[in-house]
């Protein structure tokens, strides 16, 4: 891995030399578009971990395969709360129509950096939109709470969906449990705490995300789920490239 403190321009000379085909950008929404343009020009596929979202939104168990098949050259990973909750919204909406999806993400204060803190509205807008576009709810709403408790709390996410008709309890429960297994393939600490709880047309699922505890503390499950989803995305593209089923757009075509 090459590291430098000089931004994307420091990376460009290594692209051809090291045959870099996939890059991650965790800088900021403001500089992402330019970074992406420069790397795409060299035929590098871009995984966007900023809130810029210039490419399609990606939640691996929901739509990663479709993005890989279309050979998208830039995909956006939404937000940590998006990665933790949208699979569940989708697990309900694939069974029956969801008019409204609402998620509440509780995060340990120590795991939230200055960028997110100073731009909470962007987090709200990006995640709410993704609940609709990827999760399949006609209307989405995202709430974030930053909790300073010591010792720090694990990331908690509560997902609520309002179904148009009476929810099919058995089918939805099965679909949610199946989806949790899919996410656990790349985020082992993704765990159902309570639910699905049925209340008229409301379906509520209470989740916890524990981090791996390798590079970051366990309470930073929000950071782990974001990087794990990005890694899962890169792996899928890499597998397809190696298998020859997809080919990234060459510099000439771009």
């Amino acid at each position, binding site marked *: 891995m090459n590291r430098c403190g000089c931004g994307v321009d420091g990376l460009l000379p290594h692209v051809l030399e090291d045959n870099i085909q996939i890059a991650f950008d965790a800088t900021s929404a403001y500089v992402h578009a330019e970074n992406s343009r420069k790397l795409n020009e060299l035929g590098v596929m871009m995984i966007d971990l900023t809130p810029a979202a210039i490419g399609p939104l990606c939640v691996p168990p929901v739509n990663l395969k479709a993005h890989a098949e279309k050979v998208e050259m830039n995909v956006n990973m939404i937000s940590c709360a998006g990665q933790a909750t949208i699979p569940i919204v989708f697990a309900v909406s694939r069974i029956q129509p969801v008019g409204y999806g609402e998620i509440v993400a509780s995060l340990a204060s120590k795991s939230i950096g200055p960028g997110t803190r100073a731009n909470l509205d962007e987090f709200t807008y990006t995640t709410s939109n993704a609940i609709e576009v990827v999760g399949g709810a006609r209307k989405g709403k995202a*709430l974030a709470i930053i*909790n300073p408790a010591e010792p720090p709390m694990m990331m908690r996410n509560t997902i609520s969906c309002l179904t148009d008709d009476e929810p099919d309890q058995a089918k939805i429960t099965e679909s949610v449990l199946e989806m949790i297994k899919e996410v656990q393939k790349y985020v082992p600490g993704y765990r159902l705490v*309570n639910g699905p709880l049925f209340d008229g047309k409301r379906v509520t699922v209470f989740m916890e995300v524990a981090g791996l505890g390798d590079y970051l503390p366990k309470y930073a499950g929000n950071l782990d789920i974001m990087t794990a989803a990005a890694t899962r995305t890169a792996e899928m593209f890499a597998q397809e490239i190696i298998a020859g089923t997809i080919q990234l757009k060459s510099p000439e075509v771009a």
Partner: protein
Amino acid sequence: MSAEQSLKGRKIIIHDMSLRDGMHAKREQMSIEQMVTIARALDEACVPMIQVTHGAGMGGNSLQHGFAPHSNEEYISAVASKMKQAKISVLLIPGLGTMKELKSAYDCGARSVHVATHCTEADTSPQHIAFARKLGMDTTGFLMMAHLNTPEDLAQQGKLMESYGAQTVYITDSAGYMLPADVKARVAALRAVLKPETEIGFHGHHNMGMGIANSIAAIEEGASRIDASVAGLGAGAGNTPLEVFAAVCERMGIETGCDLFKLMDMAEDIIVPMMDHMVRVDRSSLTLGFAGVYSTFLLHAKRAAERFGVPSRDILVELGRKKMIGGQEDMIVDTAMTMAKERGLLKDAAA
């Protein structure tokens, strides 16, 4: 010198909360007609500021916090157009409400805002405070659950809000946990670091019966803005009861500019008859104050208790132990379900 003498002639601004915190006590179900009736009576009684929104403020309409029958915009427009002197304010909690919603509240006539964060998370408010100032609103930084931070660290959080542009910094006793000495220490610490022109406010809850004593203690240390609700209509055991507070101020020579008898009349004739339950210190609300739990959790905990068969006091104490803060209402049902499972009252879906 006695407190009465030292406070004689002090001017303070009373900020009514019955149409915002009071929404919690009404499970967010106040009608536009009720809001307008109450706001008109407050305006007549010369209360200078009235907060009007969903109990959780901008963006509050949600499964998490309940849906009010009308949008914030509808409530604010209806009330603001009827005011002769009172200024209308709103509540904005970053992470729930956004700047888009603040702009729309401003367009409906709101001219003041409480930008609220948990008492240690002031740095989630810079864009909202700056935007409120840009709109020309009277802008307050509102530090919730203030008992959970030390006076010194709370003062630093207030200093941050001041640096973003807040003209007033509030110490918010969301759990109704504080005693007068706790309030005094915090106001004094803020006064020591804030600019002289930055005002200090206190927002109390009456869960330990200390709403008025705490507000007076705040004024003694230099606070000049006090939140209160007529007949205490607010979350938990309610806010500092406004008419009682006004009476105490009058006896002490603190100038509020409010008409005490009109306030007494509206408490008795308008507010109390519309209460769904008597807002008072009872077993559950006292538990909130005693354990330091967010007042809004009260009715949610009572509902969860009915549904899952775990007493609400047990749920509230557990929420306090887990250090849950305002906004985590989803964790009330979650905690009740986990406790019900432990007590053999509920089965696991995954099992």
